[in-house]
């Protein structure tokens, strides 16, 4: 886990761990509420204290109900979200990595302008752009289709910045030179040399893109009016709103359980990707 640090293996510090545990508690309290709430029935949610268990342990029945409510639409929403994330976040990472690499390692006319335009565009609040985007997509016939979600998720300006900075620092020009001299084309150089060095940055970008696409709410809400295309966020909000108004039938227990189930794939992705933070070191390559 820490092979890259100094040959003198530092001792594990209990003090440091203790301080971090304090911060951890701060992080965990709301998460504990979430976890405990998934063990309660709807009635228990309203009548028992938040940070302890309810009168009965309904964790497994909640999961079952969440997966089967309304003919199992939760699974459909889950499938939609996976599709949007795999194509959207995957595509976003690829585009951002390539573009960051290009901006960092190539000098061409308009480079500064690209940066300025990017910054300017990201600085405009997205919610006010929702209606123009909707009208545009409507004219292109894309609303109420999966493309309305996927195409906007392909652009991750933050991912681009991240990759730009990492590429500047982590990919030495000499390596690229060496590969070119050996006769590789630009794309070959990118895939064989740069990608490996950029791995930690790519993993971070991918993770962020995954989380933000997975939790994307506002744009799907505007673009979609067919419930069987909804991602989980919009679907769960619909369940949550069942608690309001005439004929209300709250199912908060399914909402919290659904939210927990929503987080699990992200945690799994995190755990799977984290070993890539260990690799990608350019140790020794310059010598």
């Amino acid at each position, binding site marked *: 886990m820490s092979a890259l640090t*100094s040959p003198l293996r530092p001792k594990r510090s209990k003090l440091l761990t203790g301080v*971090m545990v304090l911060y951890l508690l701060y992080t965990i309290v*709301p998460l504990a509420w979430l976890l405990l709430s998934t063990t309660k029935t709807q009635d228990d949610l309203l009548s028992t204290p938040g940070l302890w268990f309810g009168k009965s342990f309904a964790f497994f029945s909640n999961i079952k109900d969440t997966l089967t409510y309304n003919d199992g639409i939760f699974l459909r929403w889950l499938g939609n979200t996976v599709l949007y994330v795999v194509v959207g976040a995957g595509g976003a990472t690829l585009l951002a990595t390539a573009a960051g690499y290009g901006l960092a390692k*190539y000098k061409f006319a308009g480079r500064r302008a690209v940066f300025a335009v990017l910054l300017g565009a990201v600085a405009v609040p997205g*919610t006010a752009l929702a209606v123009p985007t909707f009208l545009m997509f409507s004219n292109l016939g894309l609303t109420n289709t999966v493309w309305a979600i996927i195409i906007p998720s392909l*652009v991750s300006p*933050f991912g681009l910045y991240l990759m730009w900075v990492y590429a500047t620092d982590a990919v030495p020009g000499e390596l690229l030179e060496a590969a070119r001299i050996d006769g590789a084309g630009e794309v070959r150089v990118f895939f064989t040399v740069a990608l490996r060095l950029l791995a930690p940055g790519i993993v971070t970008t991918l993770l962020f893109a995954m989380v933000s696409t997975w939790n994307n709410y506002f744009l799907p809400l505007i673009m979609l009016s067919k419930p069987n295309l909804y991602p989980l966020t919009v679907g769960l909000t619909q369940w949550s709103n069942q608690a309001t108004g005439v004929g209300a039938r709250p199912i908060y227990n399914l909402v919290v359980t659904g939210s927990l189930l929503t987080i699990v794939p992200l945690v799994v992705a995190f755990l799977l990707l984290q070993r890539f933070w260990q690799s990608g070191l350019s*140790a020794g390559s310059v010598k």
Partner: protein
Amino acid sequence: MAESVAHQHVARAGATGRRRRVFKDGKGWLFVGPFLAVFALTFLAPIGYAIYLSLYRNQAFFGGTVFVGLDNYTQALQDPKFWEAFARVAVFLVVQVPVMLVLALLAALAIDSARLHAAGFFRIVIFLPYAVPGVVAVLMWGYIYGDNFGLAANLNDLLGTTAIQPLSSSWMLPSIANIVTWEFVGYNMLIFYSALRTVPGELYEAAAIDGAGTFRTILAVKLPALRGAIVIATIFSIIGSFQLFNEPNILRTLAPNVITTYYTPNMYAYNLSFAGQQFNYSATIAIVMGVITAVIAYVVQLRGSREAL
């Protein structure tokens, strides 16, 4: 982002020094092109349309659409609601962003330091808040901030007071800052952590040989390596603060009188558009806000990269 202007080809593999070699031709477009194409469709086109909209005024019921030139902009710059919202996010930014980034930096340094027990566990748990979907946020923070049945109420009872009222107007901004910090420390920590992971081992070896202890290593090796990441994280956080929307919106159902429809500039633009059907003025507010944010972010970026050399 510093540009060096080396033109010579390296004669053989393994040149000395760490000067950056860049190619002075348009091959960069090969890599940047795909991103820019989608970017143009999803960002530039709507912004262009928004600019177009901001030059008109539409009367939703009678009278149709009228060209008004820069009238919307003059109105926006004199709009007390806009400036109240702007002042609010500016104050928020100045306080919350440094606190959050310092926490994230300390966490990243701690996790990278190899002195922590179970660093991997800390890493994922601190990241988790960022992954929690917004739909539960109302329920979750409604419980924590609830001063009738929630955690705040329990704390009040414990301390025998009624002073803790997170949803009152004097506490509201700190309450929002708390939510944002909770959500994003993990996010920023990961940016710093992955930057630290690219530091080559030789630098640590060299520092150890020079006799540097923990803190000197941090100052001399880790922090300089983090320079770029810190600049990015600062810029993201500034932009995020100016665009504050989700968290106040979450608390709006719980405190509808404290959080107005113009609590932040982004909320103002949103409500103008969706509740009031005033798309033109909404676009104007968005553009004005965008310009101010871009200018400030650009200044930060320039300052950050100048020192990077």
